[in-house]
């Protein structure tokens, strides 16, 4: 006899969005959260709700990302209504500011390729330095321009996590903090979850971030995810000067400036490294010279969960029906789609979005066999 209908393994932004989405549809869900010994990508997230540039090589990922960005306003309203937590969503459009002409040309080519791949509807704009300066007067004198996508935005990832937890609990969901899930064993029509004690679940959703690589094969699913480190600097609160989020820098409403966008392959090391921090700061001061006089008050490293092609993996096991897997490196951007759409797919009983099958982890088995 199963103790819970769904066991969601992992209580980060991905797991909580799916868990909340299932619970609000009337399913009975228990989330298994490892605790603060875990890598906690959701606590280190940059906070962008970002569309532009995503989906090269997989147009369905571009469609999916845009769908989530479009769902975000109603999703943020719903969370506010249910929990009182304002996740600080704004979607004024986002900028990717380039320092060289070749960098800008590369970005434009990528966005043109995406526009063609999705059939023409992909409303990005290319801004020359003059137009860019009209939108953001504080931009540096050496920038080459920027690409702008009107659906981009940002939110506060910590408030989002808090709101998801609150909304999930308000709907009757349960959270177990009994440590890591070590083993999942398919039994007759159910799953045995080994954590501080054995649990019995009718269905299981793997949303354990980097832990999915190990847990997936236990239920016949493939998620060869690897860590990719990003480092983030937080500056003191200053008067607002940046009204648009950019890929590298965003300023939140209360004044803090967040700087990031480093990418490193350093395994499971989530520390900060002075060389990278310095490079991030140097680029930031070229983009916005006024930052030279602004103090950094915190820095951290966090590990993105990267699949081999960088796109999400959504899958369900054919060998062990009832086992599902969800992973991505855009837990904020995709939170709305995960809660409002993907949870319906996982829960069954609703018309499925046809292209979700595209995200199956089987694509990596095929490529490794080739």
């Amino acid at each position, binding site marked *: 006899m199963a103790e819970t209908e769904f066991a969601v393994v992992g209580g980060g932004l991905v797991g909580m969005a799916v868990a909340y989405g299932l619970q609000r549809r009337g399913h009975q869900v228990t989330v298994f959260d490892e605790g603060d010994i875990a890598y906690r990508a959701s606590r280190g997230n940059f906070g962008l709700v970002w569309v532009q540039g995503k989906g090269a090589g997989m147009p369905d990922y571009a469609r999916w990302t845009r769908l989530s960005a479009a769902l975000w306003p109603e999703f943020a309203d719903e969370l506010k209504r249910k929990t009182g937590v304002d996740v600080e969503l704004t979607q004024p459009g986002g900028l990717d500011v380039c320092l060289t002409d070749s960098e800008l040309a590369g970005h434009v080519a990528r966005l043109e390729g995406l526009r063609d791949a999705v059939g023409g509807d992909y409303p990005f704009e290319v801004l020359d330095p003059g137009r860019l300066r009209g939108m953001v007067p504080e931009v540096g004198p050496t920038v080459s321009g920027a690409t702008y996508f009107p659906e981009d935005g940002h939110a506060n990832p910590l408030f989002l996590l808090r709101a998801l937890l609150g909304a999930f609990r308000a709907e009757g969901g349960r959270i177990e903090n009994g440590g890591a899930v070590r083993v999942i064993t398919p039994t007759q029509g159910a799953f045995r979850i080994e954590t501080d004690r054995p649990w019995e679940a009718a269905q299981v959703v793997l949303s354990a971030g980097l832990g999915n690589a190990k847990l997936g094969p236990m239920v016949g699913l493939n998620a060869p995810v690897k860590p990719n480190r990003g480092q983030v600097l937080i500056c*003191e609160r*200053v*008067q607002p*000067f940046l009204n648009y989020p950019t890929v590298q820098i965003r300023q939140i409403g*209360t*004044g803090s400036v967040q700087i990031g966008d480093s990418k490193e392959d350093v395994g499971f090391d989530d520390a900060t490294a002075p060389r990278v921090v310095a490079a991030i700061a140097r680029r930031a001061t070229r983009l916005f*010279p*006024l930052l030279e*006089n602004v103090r950094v008050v915190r820095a951290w490293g966090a590990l993105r969960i990267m699949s081999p092609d960088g796109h999400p993996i959504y899958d369900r096991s054919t060998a062990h029906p009832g086992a599902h897997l969800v992973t991505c490196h855009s837990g904020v951007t995709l939170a709305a789609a995960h809660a409002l759409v993907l949870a319906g797919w996982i829960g069954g009983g609703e018309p499925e979005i046809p292209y979700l099958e595209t995200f199956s982890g089987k694509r990596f088995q095929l490529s490794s066999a080739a």
Partner: protein
Amino acid sequence: MVSGSNFHRLPEPEHKGLTMTFDGRTIEARGGDSVAAALIAAGVTETRTTPVSGAARGPYCMMGVCFECLMEIDGVQNVQGCMVQVREGMSVRSMAGARTVSDAGNTHGG
């Protein structure tokens, strides 16, 4: 706000007397005082308002960690008052919300 202080100095018979100003008012300090210590000894407990809620804040941890004691010291905004020693004639002002920022001025010393 200024009132009698809840903090009392240890008896140190020999000290160098210094004066500074806080929002234009003269504050008596001692050599070796941090700006935050001199202010709370003088009964000043509110030295800024927060950028988030506008609530009053004052020196708290006294060791450079909490960032509650941000002040404008000799024209430089958002300086931690607990990490700067009083110098004779120093001009200290309270901060209202987030600091201003521009290319031109307000360079942090050090």
